[in-house]
């Protein structure tokens, strides 16, 4: 009993002597922190606002700038690394296969190493560091996040490695040697415009977008809003983030169907999610209300378009991955190239879209000029 009391007594002493010091420090830290929170903000570093139309003229201008390929010129054989931010959707998987296929057509490439960061920016940074340890000459990548990848890219640039960004976001930075870019603004405005016209300029719609915060989502929403400025009688009732996930898109749509007793149209450029939206309307028996925006070349969407004969698609620019390889190798060989190779997208009528449907393939599939051996397994 006394022992317990002693322990208690001494621990209390310890606590009383230790506590004020810790407390004082903590309070000091809190004070500085509070002051920090309310400090006036200065303009931050140069940031391209991809939600503004003007940015895309800027991108076109940048794309034409020449690259100083002389400083990158090397003799073959070359080692190429692909640091994929993620390999978890079919489009990106096809893109990766396009890279593999294109590399196989170039005998001057000795080896291709592929890493997958699984949407983890810290892992992508580690992957790039590891690829650099393997002495690659060319680094192809699509970032988990354009800003979070910068310190790792800087390391690559410092080592004289050519870096090429693939995909839907344009990176203008000394550490990014070149871009292989799909102009998503065009793609999204086209889809938005077609939807608005199909609606006859009026009605209530909602938007089904990819992962919140991704450049795809930001651009698609901005493009939609830009187009809607010319259609004041169209109400954008809700913006949902389906994460390119058909199941999630369906669930979100089910909720919206419960909230609103009439929905006239849906803006959903990603065919994969459009399927989920369609199913939700179908199961609720409200298919007759629905007009959808054009989707893309997703096989499941093509199947749907074939069935309904409506809505069409906009190409998604899968070839951009092949162009990236060609562009990067050209830089290594010292050929004169510009900053970016841009892959244009275009609208496809419902008939064209329906023709893309490949019956023997899963829904989660894309039309590609890949020989059988190179298709995803």
């Amino acid at each position: 009993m006394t022992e317990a009391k002693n322990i208690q007594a001494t621990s209390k002493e310890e606590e009383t002597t230790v506590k004020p010091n810790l407390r004082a420090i903590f309070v000091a830290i809190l004070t500085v922190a509070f002051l920090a929170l309310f400090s006036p903000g200065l303009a931050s570093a140069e940031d391209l606002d991809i939600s503004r139309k003007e940015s895309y003229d800027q991108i076109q201008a940048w794309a034409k700038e020449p690259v100083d390929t002389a400083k990158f010129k090397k003799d073959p054989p070359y080692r190429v690394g692909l640091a994929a931010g993620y390999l978890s959707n079919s489009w990106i998987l096809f893109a990766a296969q396009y890279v593999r296929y294109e590399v196989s057509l170039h005998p001057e490439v000795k080896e291709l190493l592929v890493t997958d960061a699984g949407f983890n920016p810290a892992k992508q940074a580690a992957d790039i560091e590891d690829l650099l340890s393997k002495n690659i000459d060319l680094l192809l990548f699509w970032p988990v996040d354009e800003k979070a990848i910068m310190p790792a890219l800087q390391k690559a640039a410092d080592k004289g490695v050519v870096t090429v960004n693939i995909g839907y976001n344009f990176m203008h930075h000394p550490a990014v040697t070149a871009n292989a870019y799909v102009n998503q603004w065009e793609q999204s405005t086209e889809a938005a415009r077609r939807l608005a016209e199909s609606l006859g300029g009026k009605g209530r719609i909602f938007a089904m977008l990819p992962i919140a915060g991704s450049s795809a989502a930001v651009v698609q929403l901005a493009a939609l809003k830009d187009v809607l400025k010319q259609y004041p009688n169209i109400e954008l009732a809700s913006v949902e983030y389906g994460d390119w996930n058909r199941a999630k898109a369906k669930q979100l749509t089910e909720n919206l169907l419960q909230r609103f007793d009439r929905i006239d149209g849906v803006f959903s450029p990603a065919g994969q999610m459009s399927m989920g939206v369609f199913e939700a309307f179908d199961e609720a028996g409200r298919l007759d209300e629905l007009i959808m925006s054009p989707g893309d070349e997703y096989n499941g969407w093509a199947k749907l378009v074939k069935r309904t004969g409506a809505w069409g698609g906009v190409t998604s620019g899968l070839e951009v991955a092949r162009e990236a390889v060609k562009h990067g190798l050209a830089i290594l060989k010292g050929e004169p190239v510009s900053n970016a190779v841009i892959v244009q997208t275009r609208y496809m009528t419902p008939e064209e879209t329906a023709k893309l449907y490949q019956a023997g393939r899963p829904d989660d599939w894309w039309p590609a000029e890949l020989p059988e051996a190179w298709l995803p397994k």
Partner: protein
Amino acid sequence: MRERIRAIFLGGGGIHTALAIIIVLATAFVPEFRHPDNIVNVLNQSATLAVLAIGQTFVIAAGLIDLSVGQLMSLVAVLISDLMAGRSALALPAFCLGIAVGTSIGLVNGVLLNILRIHPLILTFGMLSVLQGITFLYTDRSIGQVSPEFLRVASGSFAGIPFSLVIVIVLASTAHGALQRTRFGWHLQAVGANEENARRAGINTRGIKLVAYGISGLSAGLAGMLLAGRLGTGYPNAGSGFELDAIVAVVLGGTSLAGGRATIPGTLAAVLILAIASNMLNLLEVPAFGQMVVKGFIVIAAILLTQRRAAAV
């Protein structure tokens, strides 16, 4: 036979033997591993998890758990990056903010635990959702930029020694000292071993649990800042998944999930093993899709080899 193999591992602290083995394997079979640049890389890559796992060691040793730290890391990374916007002048205030936010939220966890008396797993899982919501209300995309000092600390070195290594060693020694040589540390492990007995012995169990969560939050704040330094910016999902890695590291390292024993060196060894394993997989060009399976097998093997015959939790 199995018992003999086990004896080798459990004898000298299984995890350290496992670490020695994996280092030998890596050095022998992976040529790029030995390169000093790569060693520095591995140390930098593992520093974030190491800091987080140190905090989680305290919590687990107290018989609790903290699932919210990954998201707390993300929140801190976002806040400090947004504040700094690349300016060195705000580096110190940002640092203070990171510590303040981390520790405060950790303490909130502790207070809620003591008042509401919910199971720590459920409480911190709920907190994880809450923090996710807060983070994404603040921003849905990467925001802000860290100052050059943060970048240097996270990835730079001095005389060949990475700054991050120094940070980890300092934190680890402090933690180890606190756990093994102070009354607080003994009381913490006593609470973890048997809370009821500890309470009867006069230990302020509620206070201990509160401080344990405070430490967990503090380490999440520090880890979040280190992560922001690695990425250069505040990415709202940056810390996602780190909490489970930290828990695995702590348990593999020898701290019992049921609470009681705590070992900081064990935790560090486990963190290193995980980092070296990832590094090896990349350098050995193991295909991207096979890496997860291999990692899983390594974890299971480590579990089977290093876990004592403790009662299941």
